[in-house]
């Protein structure tokens, strides 16, 4: 039987992540931390801040193809974590500051959105947009170009075809 993405783990650091600044902040819509919610957040999605210092998806996931227009940060919180559901305000963790490299399954290599390009080459820029994976829409990664006007978040360091289906990127400070 074929295993479909998303997996239980969809985001995995490949460099030391503990020295990085990690932000634990409430989710603006706490119901998204309920793993039984059809729109539940999963690790490897991209988040941004709202005016109340709460985290929201970086792009509109009502439909696929919407780009993130604000800086966004990777969600390092697996769906259904007890420590998230145990808090009244449902705090989740994003990678906030520092340079990082990680692998993710939450991307669409074929997507060609706005001024971007499909993900085809190493060191290509990536940006955040709403993408469809297994019939659901997530805030994930798509290919970008230097002409993109919306924020880019990193560069491809290993292509999925060479990495067991995982997209490896580096980002944060000075990518």
């Amino acid at each position, binding site marked *: 039987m074929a295993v479909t993405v998303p997996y239980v783990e969809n985001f995995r650091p490949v460099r030391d992540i503990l020295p990085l600044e990690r932000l634990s902040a409430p989710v603006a819509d706490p119901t998204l931390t309920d793993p039984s919610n059809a729109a539940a957040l999963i690790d490897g999605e991209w988040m941004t801040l709202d005016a109340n210092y709460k985290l929201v998806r970086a792009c509109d996931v009502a439909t696929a193809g919407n780009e993130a227009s604000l800086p966004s940060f990777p969600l390092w919180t697996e769906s259904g974590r007890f420590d998230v559901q145990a808090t*009244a305000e449902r705090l989740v963790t994003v990678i906030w500051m520092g340079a990082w490299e990680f692998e993710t399954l939450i991307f669409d290599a074929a997507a060609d959105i706005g001024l971007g390009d499909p993900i085809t080459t190493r060191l290509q820029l990536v940006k955040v947009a709403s993408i469809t994976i297994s019939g659901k829409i997530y805030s994930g990664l798509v290919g970008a170009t230097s002409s993109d006007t919306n924020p880019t978040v990193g560069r491809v360091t290993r292509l999925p075809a060479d990495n067991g289906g995982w997209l490896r990127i580096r980002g944060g400070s000075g990518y």
Partner: protein
Amino acid sequence: MSGSRFNSLFNTRLSEPGGKEKLAQLGGSYIRDKLREVSFVRKILPPEQVTRNDCQRSTKHDTLVKIVDVEPKSRAMVLNFRGKPSANFIRGPRAEVGFFTISSEIFQKTEQELLAYEMPLTKIIEENSVKDIQEIEDREFVLHIEAAVQALQAEANSAASAPTLNASAIGSVVEFSVRKGQLARVASTDDATVRPVQRQDFVEGFKLLDGNRLRAERGLVTEVDFDDVLSWTVEDQGDRIQSETTVDGYKYNTLLGRPYIRTIKTDILRPGNIYFFTSPEFFGKFYVLNQTKFYIDKVANKITFQAWEDIGMSVINIASVRKIELYSADATANDADSLLSNFIPVAETALGAVNNRVDQGLKFPQVVNN
């Protein structure tokens, strides 16, 4: 021992083998900014120590939960001699209590700058960190009990969420788990003014629980609301208590036969909100997985310290908490009067607001150091 001596010794000891464990001295005098109070949730839900062996893992992530059994339902029945009782294939509900961390800030200072303080800075922060952590416990608890009373109120009104409850809505809302106080009920406007608590408010609070095969065993009230008890008249208290109260204040641990807990944390439990609880065995659980730990380290001349604990807290039986509101405005999520921020705990980052104005130069007489 003076504070400056403590700071100096602190630096020395941190550099010695085993020195981190030896830092337990007291000393110094300094101006305190505010009263600090131990946790009130620990008086309502006494914490139970648990270990990893008491908890369950998940197959999907690396966090822990403790599963708690809830009493199964049962009943008896009348039969004639040839009758047969109905069957009950027993099933007891179970609830999960998740664990999370409460931490202080990561405090940092250089060895040299620490010498500029005459108060034992590190000791003060260590002691205050424990109370800071307990403040967050209380804030989480208030958010949980508020969610519980509103959920039950919604159910009683056959609504998806609790209906607006302000003075204008009295009579159209079933006040099952949240009830307006006696003076708030007759207010002419829906406002944030906290009316003085009346004897009848406590009685109505008790009855919210006592009428449902439960018993109100304790109340939680702010110090400022409880101050209004001192204004109760001889008709409320009788002449003996009235005389005592006039001289000594109200000095009993019970009010109308029930224990109560007073708190000065009015930025967490906002004035005008009085909660009533059953005894803990009907109510919920407060588990401590890791007691408060204090970490301190010195790398070169930089000192770093942090405190944290790992706990789980859950209102398992939401019917075991009820609330009286002493203000006439709406305090549901509907925020019908746009005054909700007056009634709910302030943001975590806004806790611990500073009372003194020393940094702004406001102290008298003004003495300027040039």
